Structures are given as structure tokens and as C-alpha cells.
């Protein structure tokens, strides 16, 4: 288990999430792909916290936790995002009777 292997795994996960976000037409599937991307970023942050020396590690050992704190913030923001996202999906379903992104064209004209 090396840093490069971990980074490559998270890059693969991020690419899968990106593909899902771009190429799916169901809103809920797009949100799920977004969650995969969030998780890939978290994995990168924690892997870098484990292997890479942050600035000022010599002065204060607490700097080794910076990556984990960042991942914690990402998890919190992802939770807020998904609560709102699913609320928007339900509002969209209520108004258009569909969760298909290609039919969400109300703002077009």
C-alpha cells in the first residue's frame, strides 16, 4: 500500500463518478455519482494526511490531522448538499412528474 496506489484508486473512483454524473439521465443517479466523487476526494485527503508531511509538522504534531479535519468538513457539506439535492428532486418530480434530466427544460423558454 503506497501513496501512489491510493491516489490512483481515488482517481479511478473520481473518474467513475464523473462519468456517471455526465452520462446518466436520471437525477437520482446523477446525485449518487456525485456522492462517489465526494468519497474519492475524501480518500485523497485522508491518504495525503497519512503519507505526506504537512507544513510545520516538526513544530506541532497536531498538523498531521489537518487532512482529516478537511475530510470531516467535506462529509458535512456533502450531507447538507444531498439533503437539499433530494429536496429539489422531489420538488421537480412534483412539478413535472419526471426525474429525467433531459426533460427538465422549464427554464429554457
Amino acid at each position, binding site marked *: 500500500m503506497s501513496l501512489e496506489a491510493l491516489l490512483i484508486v481515488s482517481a479511478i473512483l473520481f473518474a467513475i463518478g464523473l462519468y456517471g454524473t455526465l452520462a446518466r439521465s436520471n437525477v437520482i*443517479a446523477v446525485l449518487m455519482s456525485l456522492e462517489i466523487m465526494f468519497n474519492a476526494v475524501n480518500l485523497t485527503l485522508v491518504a495525503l494526511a497519512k503519507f505526506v508531511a504537512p507544513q510545520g509538522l516538526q513544530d506541532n504534531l497536531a498538523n498531521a490531522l489537518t487532512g482529516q479535519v478537511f475530510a470531516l468538513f467535506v462529509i458535512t457539506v456533502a450531507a447538507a448538499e444531498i439533503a437539499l439535492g433530494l*429536496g429539489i428532486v422531489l420538488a421537480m418530480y412534483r412539478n413535472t412528474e419526471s*426525474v429525467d434530466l433531459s426533460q427538465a427544460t422549464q427554464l429554457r423558454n
Partner: protein
Amino acid sequence: MLFQDIVQDVVFWVLSVAAIGAALGVVLVRDLFRAVLLLAGVFIAMAGFFVLLSAEFLAVVQVLIYVGAISILFIFAIMLTRNVRQGNLPNRLQIPAVLFSTLLLAALVVVATSTEWNLIPDGAKTGVDLVQTQSVNVLSPEALKQAGVVSDEAKAQAEKAGLADLLIGPFVLPFEAVSVLLLAALIGGLALARPPGRA
């Protein structure tokens, strides 16, 4: 130490295959309900990664928030939108999407492998490991001595090195900002979920 390394490697490969396989399933499976279950698999594999990377608190948070709350929210949304039959159809952007994500993957892999990472020096590894694995509980004097932290100053610093100390210390401003964001999301969610017409 050698045996530990082998176990770590095996766990790492198992988790990687599980996470990538489940993620592929999420974006390729037609049935949305199955996709959510696979997504929970991705989340659990990620919690395993966090344990492997000595971030136990994050692993617990991952299971509580992602597996416990977000997966359930997704299942609710799928049940409420009721057209599970129609499923997870691809749109017309297949080829550009594949191209773009492959290009991004290639760029990320090149960056990850060609960068000269400033790795943690061997001398500091035990201290960093101690701080990361014990990020929630109070460090005992014996554990500190074992990790080679002996000077009074370093001891005081290591005892203060916890996630909670960081969140109400140097990171207090983003912490408060996130709490305001959560409140705004709560109110926004209420406003969105309320049926239209009732002010």
C-alpha cells in the same frame, strides 16, 4: 512488521476492488434500487479505507452519515419518485462523457505518479501515527513515551492534538461557517419539501 505490511496490502487490494467494482455498478446498473445498495457498498469500503489509513473517527462518521443517513435518503427519494421501472437510463452524452473522464483519469494518474511527494520522515512516523489513531481520546503518558515524544513541550502539543481541539482551535471559523450552512440547508430543505400553495 513484515506480516503487518502483507495484511495491509491484502486489505488494501480487497477494498480497492470492492470500491471500484461497486462504483462501476452504481453508474452502470439499470435498476436504481440496486444502484443504491451498491452505493452503500462503496461507502462501507471507504470506511474500511479510513480505518486502514488510521482515521478511525472518520470511519465511524462515514458509517453513521453516509451508510446510515444518505443511503436511506436516496432510498426514500427513489420510493417517492415511483418510476423505478424506467430505471437508470443513459443519456446522449455517452462518448464525450467516457472520453472526458478517461482523459481526467489519465491526467490524475500522471500527476499522482510523477509528483515528488514530501513524505513524512521515518523519525516522525510513530508520532504522526499516534496522533492520527488517537485523534479522539486523551493520550496516556506511556503511549507518548512509546512514540518517542519525551520533551515537555512536545508532550503538551501532542496532548492537544485532537480533532476536537483543532475544530475549536485553528479551524473554528470554517467550523462555524459549516454550522451556519447546515442551518441554511435545514431551512432550505423545509421550504423545498413543503407542498406548494401553502405559505
